Structure formats: structure tokens, C-alpha cells
């Protein structure tokens, strides 16, 4: 649906996006993840025809953002990061204004406004359509922005930080809505919060310093952390050091960290490669007559992975 090829963007002498390529399949929800200033918004702005790329190309539904700009814009609903609105307009008035810019015939505009109002909690539980945009709270502005994007029911939704500034309840509702929208739309959302992307997206693209550092499904990325292999065990029956030392002699144990927990020794054993040493640890405890109360593989979180890749990148850049 969306094809980004060798995308590069310079702002004057600042390189914001550096040779990024990725594809978004039709009907997927893609999370665009990166620390602040990584180039997420810039990429989205190029995708939505707000600004042209310096090099490279972006096509949406086979249409180039430069040569078929108007057609691309018809297929995209774009919610910018700050959700800019005209403060003097009323919610309903603004949505009708946007509807007519979006080629929705005058007769169908009221129906479209009602439909999105309902979907984005603007008409229920409280009717907000007569409120002035300038008087709305951040959460409501966000809802108006999202409602506007859904007016013409575009095949592609581009949402820049859709949950920023929302309270926890609203974030949950917004996530549910995005998941629901993902069923019949292609959604690209950017975020610097990993948990959010992990829950809502079927595909994740991580960028850092303008460069693409990883992409895949949340599971694929998680696997890459698990690949490191870490086993956690809690054992009692001997001195901590003795237990840790014994664990260190196991084949494939690369590193052993230990700590005390009310008389129990908690081991964190990092293994070499993909090997699983849980069995070896059990035998070790059994043979020594030690008590074993916990033994599990530490599943790496995406958080670890995210921090790992973005941190490594920034270290490389610094070095």
C-alpha cells in the first residue's frame, strides 16, 4: 500500500531522514517508533505530501507523492502531531468545512459528521459539536482531529502521535479505536512510547537519528531480544557465592549475576547463543541437594530491544 524507497530529507544542512526504505502492506497497522527527533514526523509529512523528499520516493497505492500529489492526498487521512485547529470555529462547523474540502457532497456532509462524531465520542455521552475548538481540552482536540481524518473514510490513515496528551482512560479508548480501524484501513502511527505500539501494531518500524534500525512484527523483534538467552533461578541451600560459582561452571553459561532475597539466591544466567540451560541448572540444584523455587527463561521485552537498538545507534554516532 505504501512504499518508501531510499527516503532522504535534509532541512538546510540538517539531515533529518537518512536513506530509509520500508513497505507497508494493505490492511496492516504499522507503528513508527523512535526517540524524539528521530525523523518520524518528517517521514510522515513527506508521506502525506506536506513536503517533498530531498531524495528517494514514496508511493501510496502506486501513486507518487510528488507527481500524483492530489490523488495521494485523497487517499490519506492525516492527523498532524499538534492537531492544529481553528480556535474560532465550532466542532460541527469545522468538520463540515473539512468535509467539503474532502469532496464529500453537501447532502452527505451532515451524515458524515454524525458518523465520525459518534465514533470519536464527540456526540456521546455529551454533545460537543456546538463547542468552540479554542475552548476544548487537549483530549477533545485530539478526538476532533481523529474525527476529521475519518470523514472521507480514506484507505490510509496517518496519525502522528495519536495518544500524546491523553489521560489513561482516553489512551485505552484511542488504542481500541485504532485497533478497530486497523480492520479495514491501513494505519501508520508514530510514537515514542513502545507499550502503545506493541499493543496496537502488527508491524513495527524503528528509526533512530534518521536511520532505520529495525523492522518486523512485535514477535519477531521480541525474538531478537530473547535470542540473547537469559535464565532466572532462585536457589537456597548454600552460600550465594558458592551457588553462583557452581552455576558459572556450567557449559554455555556466559555470565552469572546473583543477588540475595531473604535467604534465597537469585541467579541471572546469561547463556551463549540460543542454548537453554534450565535443565542443567535443575540438575545442578538437584545434585547438590539445594532447594529450587523458580526457574524460567527471561522473555526479553520489546522495551529492552528498543532501548538496545536506539542506544547502540546513538553510541555509534557518538563514537
Amino acid at each position: 500500500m505504501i512504499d518508501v524507497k531510499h527516503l532522504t530529507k535534509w532541512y538546510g544542512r540538517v539531515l533529518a531522514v537518512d536513506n530509509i526504505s520500508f513497505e507497508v502492506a494493505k490492511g496492516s497497522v504499522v507503528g513508527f517508533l523512535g526517540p524524539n527527533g528521530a525523523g518520524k514526523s518528517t517521514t510522515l509529512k513527506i508521506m502525506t505530501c506536506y513536503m517533498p523528499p530531498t531524495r528517494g520516493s514514496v508511493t501510496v497505492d502506486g501513486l507518487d507523492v510528488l507527481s500524483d500529489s492530489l490523488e495521494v492526498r485523497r487517499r490519506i487521512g492525516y492527523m498532524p502531531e499538534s492537531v492544529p485547529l481553528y480556535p474560532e470555529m465550532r466542532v460541527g462547523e469545522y468538520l463540515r468545512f473539512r468535509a467539503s474540502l474532502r469532496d464529500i457532497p453537501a447532502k452527505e456532509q451532515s451524515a458524515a459528521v454524525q458518523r465520525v462524531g459518534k465514533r470519536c465520542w464527540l456526540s456521546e455521552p455529551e454533545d460537543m459539536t456546538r463547542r468552540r475548538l479554542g475552548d476544548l481540552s487537549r483530549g477533545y482536540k485530539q478526538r476532533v482531529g481523529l474525527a476529521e481524518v475519518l470523514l472521507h473514510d480514506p484507505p490510509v490513515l496517518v496519525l502522528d502521535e495519536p495518544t500524546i496528551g491523553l489521560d489513561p482512560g482516553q489512551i485505552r479508548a484511542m488504542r481500541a479505536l485504532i485497533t478497530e480501524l486497523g480492520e479495514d484501513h491501513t494505519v501508520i502511527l508514530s510514537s515514542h512510547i513502545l507499550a502503545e505500539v506493541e499493543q496496537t501494531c502488527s508491524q513495527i518500524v524503528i528509526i533512530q537519528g534518521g536511520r532505520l534500525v529495525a523492522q518486523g512484527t512485535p514477535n519477531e523483534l521480541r525474538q531478537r531480544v530473547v535470542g540473547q538467552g537469559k535464565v532466572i533461578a532462585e536457589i537456597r541451600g548454600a552460600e550465594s557465592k558458592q551457588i553462583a560459582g557452581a552455576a558459572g561452571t556450567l557449559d554455555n553459561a556466559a555470565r552469572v549475576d546473583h543477588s540475595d532475597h531473604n535467604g534465597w539466591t537469585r541467579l541471572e544466567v546469561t547463556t551463549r547463543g540460543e542454548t537453554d540451560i534450565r535443565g542443567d541448572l535443575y540438575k545442578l540444584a538437584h545434585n547438590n541437594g539445594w532447594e529450587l523455587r523458580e526457574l524460567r527463561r527471561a522473555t526479553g521485552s520489546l522495551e529492552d530491544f528498543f532501548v538496545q537498538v536506539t542506544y547502540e545507534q546513538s553510541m555509534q554516532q557518538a563514537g
Partner: protein
Amino acid sequence: MGKIWTLARRELAGTFFSPLAWVVGALFLCACAFKFCPPPAFWSGSRDAFILVPHQQASLRGLFEMMGVAMVVAAPLLTMRLVAEEVRSGTVETLVTAPITDAQIILGKFAGVMGFYMALLASTVVFLVLMLIFATPDAGVVIMGYLGMLLLGAAFLAAGLFASTLTRYQLLAAVIGIGVVSLLGIFPGRLAPHLPAPLNQVAANLNAQAYLRDFARGMFDSRGLIYFLSLTAGFLFLSVKMLESKRWR
């Protein structure tokens, strides 16, 4: 066309919402009223500067000339927010990513502010009505005068709109706009008599007030028509190009 209308309506509503537009409109009408009424008691200068002077022939010509001068300041003040405000608040991002062309955006904004300007001109009909009580003004002067004001207003507002595309700061847009409009509406008339041979002709031909004066005399001058229309088209074209170029920076 429909989208230009949509944009124009929103712009017009936005203008009516801005206190500044009301202040500018009120000052514009005050300037006209000052010109129109008999000279105040403290006035020691020439009585020819006023329209309703006892024992003197009254003509609407002076009123149109006054409006022409007032527009040098009023037009850029009315147009300064058009694009600058969109850029500052970020709404330009939703505007230019909607399926509309930059030309439609500029034309919509221009049509919106022209709507406000026409309402302003319409309210000066008060003076015409007052005049009708005392005399029978020449129909040609009235019709041509208003046509001239419409053309001059279009050119000045287009220039102001162009100034608004240059910066995100409204005040700066107004200052630039007044500067640009002065080059057409103030300086040529003042400078023409003092310039050497070829330049004084250029200045005279650039003088917007001279063309307006012809209209205010009840004459239809095609040179004036072409002058104002080409200025309007030129500034609108430049505005579209400036808006386009924003994407490239």
C-alpha cells in the same frame, strides 16, 4: 470552484470573528466620515479638504480619493493574518494536505477578504444616502467611483495577501504589506513631480491614486482597469508561488 467557495466562506467568517477587522473597518469609516462632514470648528486649513462645506459644491470624488488613501493601511491590516496565522498555528499543515491546490487556497482566502471589503464598501453607501438628501450626485461618479474602489481594493488586498505569505508573523506581514502597497498608492504620486525625465513617467504610470481619480471623476479608463487587474493577478500568482515554495524549505 466549490472548494474556493468553501475556503472563502470560512475565511470571511474568520475575518468577522477577528476584532482587528472590526477596528480596521471602523477606522476606515471614521476617516471617510471625517472627510465627508463639514470642517470642524478648530480646522484652520483649507476647507476644500472636506465634502459637505456650506456654499460650496459637494462631490463624492473626494470621498473616493480618501478611501483610496485609507486602503494603503487598511488593506494590509485586513490581509495580514490570512496565511501568516495558518503557518504560525500549524493549521497550514492540515490545509495543504487536503486534496486542494495551492491556487485554490490563495483564491479562497482572497475571495474571503474581498467579501469583507465589499461589506465595508457597502457600508459607505450611508454617505451616498446623506448626499442624496442635500443634492443629486452624478450617477457616473458613483458607479465608476465604486468600480474604481473595487479594483483598487482587489489590487491592494492581493498585495497584502502576498505579504502575508512571506512570514509567519502577522505584524511583520502588515508592515511589509503597507510598504508594498505604498509603492503603488503613496510614493509614485509624491515622487513623480521631483523625478527626472524618464522616471517621472514611470512613477506617474504606477500611481494607483491617479487611476482611482479618473474613476472617481466618472470616467471609465481601460488603462486603470488593466493596471488594477494585472496587479491583482500578479500578486495572487506570487502568493501561490510563495505558498508552494514553503514546502520546499
